[in-house]
């Protein structure tokens, strides 16, 4: 057997941390590249079917709009339903990527495989291991947003009205929403019991989607005041409203400072909850 002495690279603490962080990032990238097809499939199925049925099939039916009250409402207000859906479906894509990239793998890790153990044992503070997952998930969310946009733009029978006044603002909203989605995934993945992870779709994902101003703008809720206030606790609302402000401002949206402020607050809160949960799961 060959005897070789290996000396670890002598590095400063910060450089050691960044190398470990980069190593984990490259590992995630490697795995994602290998699973690119299922990744893309996962992102496109929901918006594809939703757009196909609600913005293509139904408008072609006689009286189809009658079956779709939101579409009727949108048309009365003078804009197409596809304009409402474009930012909404992008937000769902972003949010769902956070769940799929962080919450589900963590549940599998904690529940059975414990694959994350090798990363937890690397020379990096444990909270940064969790942060890497959030950051990598955010990149997947940005990709998801970029994939959903052309679908939501080209599939509908009536093109959505898109007006991007500021690209930096759009970029900022997408990045903040993506980070928030990662933090949400971390909070869910570490607080739900691994055996119950199947339940998160019915008790978390579906409610926050339907009450997340995805299929209607927040301003349109003014007639149901209590609901308009209640949904403010749902972080998805700020993702959809942010995208609405950046992409389809003609529809009306929440004030921009409120959107950005709440994206930041929700991110900080969910990161804190997620990080605590993560530490609890990996350190006894």
């Amino acid at each position, binding site marked *: 057997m060959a005897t070789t002495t290996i000396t670890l*690279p002598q590095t400063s603490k910060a450089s050691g941390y960044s190398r470990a962080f980069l190593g984990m990032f490259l590992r995630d990238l490697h795995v994602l590249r290998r699973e690119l097809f299922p990744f893309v499939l996962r992102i496109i199925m929901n918006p594809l079917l939703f757009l196909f049925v609600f913005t293509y099939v139904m408008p072609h039916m006689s009286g189809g709009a009658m079956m779709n009250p939101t579409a009727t409402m949108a048309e009365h207000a003078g804009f197409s339903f596809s304009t409402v859906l474009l930012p909404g479906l992008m937000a769902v894509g972003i949010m769902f990527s956070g769940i799929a990239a962080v919450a589900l793998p963590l549940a599998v890790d904690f529940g059975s495989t414990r694959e994350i153990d090798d990363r937890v044992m*690397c020379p990096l503070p444990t909270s940064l291991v969790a942060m890497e997952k959030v950051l990598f998930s955010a990149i997947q969310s940005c990709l998801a947003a970029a994939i959903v946009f052309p679908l939501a733009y080209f599939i509908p029978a009536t093109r959505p009205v898109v007006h991007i006044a500021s690209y930096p603002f759009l970029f900022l909203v997408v990045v903040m929403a993506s980070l928030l989605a990662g933090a949400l995934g971390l909070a869910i993945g570490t607080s739900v019991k691994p055996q119950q992870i199947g339940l998160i779709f019915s008790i978390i994902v579906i409610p926050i989607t339907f009450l997340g101003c995805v299929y209607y703008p927040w301003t349109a809720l003014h007639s149901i005041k209590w609901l308009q206030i209640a949904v403010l606790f749902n972080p998805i609302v700020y993702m959809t409203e942010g995208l609405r402000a950046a992409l389809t401002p003609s529809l009306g949206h929440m004030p921009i400072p409120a959107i950005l402020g709440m994206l930041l607050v929700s991110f900080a809160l969910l990161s804190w909850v997620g990080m605590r949960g993560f530490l609890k799961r990996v350190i006894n």
Partner: protein
Amino acid sequence: MTPGIVSLRSLQKTYPGKPPVTAVAGIDLDVPVGAIYGLLGPNGAGKTTTISICTTRALPTSGSALIAGVDVVKSPSEARRHMGVVPQYNTLERACTVEENIQFHCMYFGFTAAAAKSRTAQLLEQFHLTERAKTYPNQLSGGLAQRVQIARAIAHSPQVLFLDEPSAGLDPQSRIAMWDSVKDLHNHGITVVLTTHYMEEADELCDRIAIIDNGKILVEDTPQALKASLGASTIYELSLRETTPAITAQFQQMPGVTAVEPTPKGLRILASGHREALLPQLVNTASNNGLLDLSITEPTLETVFIRLTGRELRE
């Protein structure tokens, strides 16, 4: 006590709850550099908790743990650079091949991609895994998966390797292969700390052993010294219909008998000297009390454990 490469002082760990559970109840331990050190004890003795604290995966309630002089509570990230860990379960990344598992591990520890690649190739060869380089972990047998885990754990050349119950779930052949790997690492100067409840494993592999029960170290020494501490070369287990103080006294007076202890089935007699002289006498005397069965063994670590706790190791 000279501080060892693994040095534990008054280590305690109590899990809160109703009632609170004390898993580690004050452990002082020093593992000499280059040793294969065994923590031997029954399930639930506190071995895994002790290892978890050493490997930064559990926080002690009090006391300290130093690995290569680094405090695992104060500087966990730094301490991890000095240790490799193989847990009880398979934690290989299912989405990565054997080769990638080791390569990425190297990169977490600061290797460049090229250095990680060459270190991986070297380890695959060392552990006879080169042919499995492109295999995914779920295609590996338990023994092979564990070999990969050991290779991965030492990829960053740690000073100490922790193995938690390395024999659990392995067939006898894989167990022997694992022992060979551990002895090889030992020859390369790596200190190995392992937990086990197989006394054969502790006896075969370890230079020193700490016998742990109820979160405390009962005794700590070399396997030879522990067995010698019984002061006997032969152990006779007698199964008797009835045990009387008179017969116990009779056995005690026989030449070579060092101890007579009651057991649930009869008596255990520890003796030194020649078997031929004592055995007929034992049988004759025991026959008067209804001798049902007799077994003769050499002292083992199991016997040491039974003497210390009155229980068997695998109860």
